């Protein structure tokens, strides 16, 4: 029993346990400092659904041995393109939402394809390069947002009549289209976002199934044992490219789901800072640089987003100051740092 506990702690890692206990204590403390539990829980669920698919997007590349996808911004940009095109065509409701995903698909496949090809040429250095490829691409797109010929008045700057705004509201198009679908309201403060969680569940289930298909298994094999994979006739490069395309595609869906819940499309430099929280979340969930599962995604997103929801309200009521931003920076980057400095364990 003692030994079991010890190996469990070793496998799970101290930082995760500390974060978990911290979150539990926040929930316990909440009622005593006048923070409503039901409202907080509702917020947690909402934010969980909002971010989960972005976190899920990291799984394929981790599995295929490409490491943490610091270039997820490419997928996010593809999603932004899909969303803006959907708004430009004035698609509303479910048409607008799924239209956005449909328009984002070709972009994400094209971006993912070239990004994957690039990463194949730089094996071993993927993470640093992915980060800078992501940054420079976001900057390139900043110029594109200014010059692309969008002209829906809700999207462009009013006085110039061209150039997209930094934030575009999706109100009147597909605001909270998933959140409100079959939503269950209990009391004044608690809303269960059924549609959102169903969609997240469907995506996670889809990836779970995919990883068990022939291609999915081959992908995992390439990541965990490239020599073995090569010996059994799997093309590593092809599998890696597939995983990058899939990751980019999921990133695109993820940001559209995020937007419908958040209410705004954020353009220009906004995609870059979205990447690190996603990476931190999957690592908090127990993933490592070369191994990730659905459980890691779901648990990690819930823990991390729970932390981000609870710290401002609870800590602020205790200390009377807003330290949430600093806590967020330290926790998320501390977690990534922890994962990067751990000896890479041979997968079991």
């Amino acid at each position, binding site marked *: 029993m003692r030994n079991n506990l010890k190996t469990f702690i070793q496998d799970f890692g101290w930082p995760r346990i500390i974060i978990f206990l911290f979150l539990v204590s926040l929930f316990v403390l909440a009622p005593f400092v006048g923070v409503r539990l039901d409202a907080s829980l509702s917020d947690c669920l909402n934010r969980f659904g909002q971010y989960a698919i972005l976190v899920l997007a990291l799984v394929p590349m981790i599995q295929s041995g490409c490491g943490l996808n610091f270039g997820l911004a490419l997928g996010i940009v593809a999603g932004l393109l899909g969303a803006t095109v959907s708004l430009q065509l004035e698609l509303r409701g479910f048409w607008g939402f799924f239209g956005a995903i449909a328009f984002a698909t070709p972009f994400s496949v094209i971006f993912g394809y070239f990004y994957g090809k690039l990463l194949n*040429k730089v094996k071993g250095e993927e993470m640093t390069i992915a980060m*800078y490829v992501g940054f*420079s691409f976001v900057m390139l797109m*900043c110029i594109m947002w200014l010059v692309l010929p969008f002209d829906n008045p809700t999207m462009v700057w009013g006085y110039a009549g061209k150039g997209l705004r930094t934030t575009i509201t999706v109100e009147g198009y597909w605001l909270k289209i998933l959140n409100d679908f079959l939503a269950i309201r209990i009391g004044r403060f608690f809303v269960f976002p059924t549609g959102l969680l169903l969609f997240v569940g469907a995506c996670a289930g889809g990836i779970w199934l995919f990883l068990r298909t022939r291609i999915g298994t081959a992908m995992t094999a390439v990541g965990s044992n*490239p020599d073995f994979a*090569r010996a059994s006739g799997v093309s590593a490069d092809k599998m890696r490219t597939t995983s990058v395309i899939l990751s980019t595609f999921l990133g695109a869906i993820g940001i559209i789901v995020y937007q419908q819940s958040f209410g705004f499309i954020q353009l220009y430099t906004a995609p870059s800072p979205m990447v690190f929280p996603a990476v931190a979340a999957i690592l908090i969930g127990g993933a490592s640089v070369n191994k990730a599962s659905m459980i890691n995604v779901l648990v990690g997103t819930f823990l991390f987003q729970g932390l981000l929801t609870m710290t401002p309200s609870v800590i602020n009521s205790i200390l009377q100051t807003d330290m949430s931003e600093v806590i967020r920076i330290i926790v998320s*980057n*501390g977690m990534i740092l922890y994962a990067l400095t751990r000896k890479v364990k041979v997968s079991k």
Partner: protein
Amino acid sequence: MFSEYAVVIIFLVITIAAISPSGLSLTYIIQELITRLGRNSFLVISLLLPIYSGMGLNFAMSLGAMAGQIGLIFAVDWSVAGWQGLVFALLIGLPIAVFLGWICGKVMNKAKGREMVTGYILAFFINGIYQFFVLYMMGSVIPMRNASILLSRGYGIRNTLNLESVRQSLDTIFMLKLGGFDVPVVTLIIIALLCVFIVWFKKTKLGQDMRAVGQDMTVAEAAGIPVEKTRIVAIIISTVLACAGQLIFLQNMGNLATYNAHDQTSFFAAAAILVGGASVTHASIPNVFIGVILLHAMFIVSPLAGQNLFGSAMVGEYFRQFIGYGVIALSLVLYAWKSRKAIFNSRSDLRGGAAGKGKDEGGQA
């Protein structure tokens, strides 16, 4: 051959093409370049030692920058003015920089082979602690004398700090008028001295050890060089230099954005040295100066060129950031590409020169 100078050539072409649409006079550009050479070179030089030691670009150099900023905050707080204020700031920043450098070295030793991404994240992490320290500790736990630099709530430092008391105090000790240009002689002398130090240091035992570690860690270990210690020393020196470099940078700028002045320190420095023709494993002092001149020449002309060509200064602003990040990405890609090719070639040599199938070769590094 082309790939060796690809970045330099691309840069030269873009910048020269952008000079005429920017409408800036050549005298203005040269004066700006002299100023920026004094402002930035020191920071860029601080990247050299980790490159020699095989640790790549030290994206964690902003740790040193943060140490320098803490020193500067105290210098303003104690109202030590003039260049003495800078020395005071350096004295306070130095031990912090050494400590942070030591932590950074320890962390990087645990992440061999991915120092760059680790350094990048470490800079973010320490940024969180820096913010905690400056925003919550200063003025509440750590007594501050000067209430005017505190936020109105009584603790925490203001978002922008006016460095009037030390503004350009180093540059103006002796400002030479040379053919219509202002040359900050003392700053440039300090940079020259640092270059001499780097050249001398490379010849010392420790400097030679660093090269050996950079070449091959296992061989160096076998030769009795304390690999981990040498790497830590390289990072500590780099962090300390970055601390001093940030002070030179800030005294020239004249104000301090307390919470994000250090955000882009490593980005600009890394982009500069790569533009100057350095790679992740090879860098020299000429790379530093060529890089600073080329990068900043483009930074000077691009906003106005964007304004005149596209009718929006933001285009130029985004463009220069795109180029900065793009250059870093491109050099990293070219380097990784080359080193993979080298591995592949040496493998096919082993097979007696037969070109292997090798499409899925390599992988684990």
